């Protein structure tokens, strides 16, 4: 039943796609029918092309995401402890946040060249703020009454961090991580359009130049489906780690 609910809309969309293309006899170059895209998928998978590009993209996204976590979370902890210092940086950080990462591409290429570094830095720019800001507000919003409760049980500082601060901030941190994961995946494809030689973004760009529209479609679908799966997996891991958060279970 749940499966039925989830798949109804996609199935209808695919059917409409198929019907529209055939009924109006649309040029397959502009809008290839589903079966042609499926054939492209088949070809890409059989030749190990898709797997290779997906793997490369995954590793890039994961690298960028992990590096950002290692920077943004400690920074958020720092600003949580030294709240006063944050007001100095607040305006500057907000300025940075308002600049879309994509607008930074020319500068990034100038600074880091067209290699791996500029792609990674684009992903870092795209994930930094969701992780940093959500972690910070999660920590800052922990109910001080719970910490007083911790005092009443004679908890040590470490125990208060372990049992109160971290779990109470977890929902906000998780939201930040999820947002960042989505951002990193989206920024990645843009990054791979900067003169990459592999990755899904590259695959799409390359197919466009070769006028293989069906491969472009296959690439777009792959990005969407993988993004969806990654979010689901993220949710599953978090539901395991935080069994008390009921809204993760859905």
């Amino acid at each position, binding site marked *: 039943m749940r499966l039925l609910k989830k798949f109804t809309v996609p199935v209808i969309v695919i059917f409409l796609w198929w019907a529209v293309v055939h009924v109006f006899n649309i040029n397959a170059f502009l809008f290839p029918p589903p079966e042609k895209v499926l054939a492209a998928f088949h070809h890409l998978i059989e030749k190990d092309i898709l797997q290779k590009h997906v793997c490369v993209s995954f590793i890039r996204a994961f690298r960028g995401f992990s590096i950002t976590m290692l920077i943004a979370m400690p920074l958020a902890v720092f600003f949580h402890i030294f709240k006063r210092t944050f007001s100095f940086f607040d305006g500057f950080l907000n300025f940075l946040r308002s600049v879309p990462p994509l607008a930074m591409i020319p500068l990034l290429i100038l600074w880091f060249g067209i290699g791996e570094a500029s792609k990674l830095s684009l992903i870092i720019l795209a994930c930094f703020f969701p992780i940093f800001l959500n972690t910070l507000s999660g920590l800052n919003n922990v109910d001080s*009454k*719970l910490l*007083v*409760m911790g*005092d*009443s*049980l*004679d*908890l040590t500082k470490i*125990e208060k961090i372990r*049992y*109160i601060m971290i*779990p*109470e901030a*977890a929902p906000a941190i998780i939201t930040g991580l999820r947002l960042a994961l989505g951002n990193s995946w989206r920024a990645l494809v843009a990054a791979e359009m900067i003169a990459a030689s592999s990755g899904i973004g590259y695959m799409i760009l390359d197919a466009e130049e070769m006028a293989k529209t069906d491969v472009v479609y296959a690439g777009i679908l792959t990005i969407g489906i993988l993004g969806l799966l990654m979010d689901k997996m993220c949710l599953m891991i978090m539901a395991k780690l*935080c*069994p*008390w958060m*009921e809204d993760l279970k859905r």
Partner: protein
Amino acid sequence: MSDISLSDVNKSFVLRDRTVDAVSNFSLTIEDGTFVSVIGPSGCGKSTLLSIIGGLLKPDSGTVSINRGEKRCGFVFQEPRLLNSCTVKENMILGMKHIKSNSARNQVLADVLELLELTEFINAYPYQLSGGMAQRAALGRALCRQPGILLMDEPFSSLDAMLRKKLQNELVSLYLKKNLTIVFVTHDVSEAVFLGRKVVIMNDGQLIRQQKIDLEYPRNTSSPEFISLCDSIMETISYSRYQV
């Protein structure tokens, strides 16, 4: 020997446009092993007073001496303040560092859960509990500390009449058996008189009156002495209210 003594304690809070004197010029001594009920209208500073007694809040001026010795304090807050990330059991065990052995700890836990009729919910998370169950879990967390001093802020306020009666009786027998020192905040006059050896009446942050209750435990709520004590306390409360 007195366990707890406050002298000339003041505590005020600064709000946006004014200051609130939550507790002012408050002096009180609580002898070792006394059951004190604190009663007064909403907002008169009862919770603030209790936090000061428990050492959770520093007064602005005045001295507080708490002679804890080896005794642990058990604090029941007005709201449950359970940790959402911990089950009922984990919430309770958090305060049981004084018991080293696992099996002894589980035994104490099981007894407390049994008393509070929460045994079935030992592994439930706070979001799965009703309001009254959460309140009982918070009460259990304090009892699990096997405290010598119990500070309780309206611990029975959201329980049904039957369970409340049962827990009042249990609290009295625990008090008599363990010779605890208890400070019990309530807004229910008859509960205050039923439980306390002394009733402290507060209004507007100040101590209005202290009334000794010399009735034998368990007290008979329909005896004329009981009723007249209740009436007299009620009168003081309503009188002080109109003074302001």
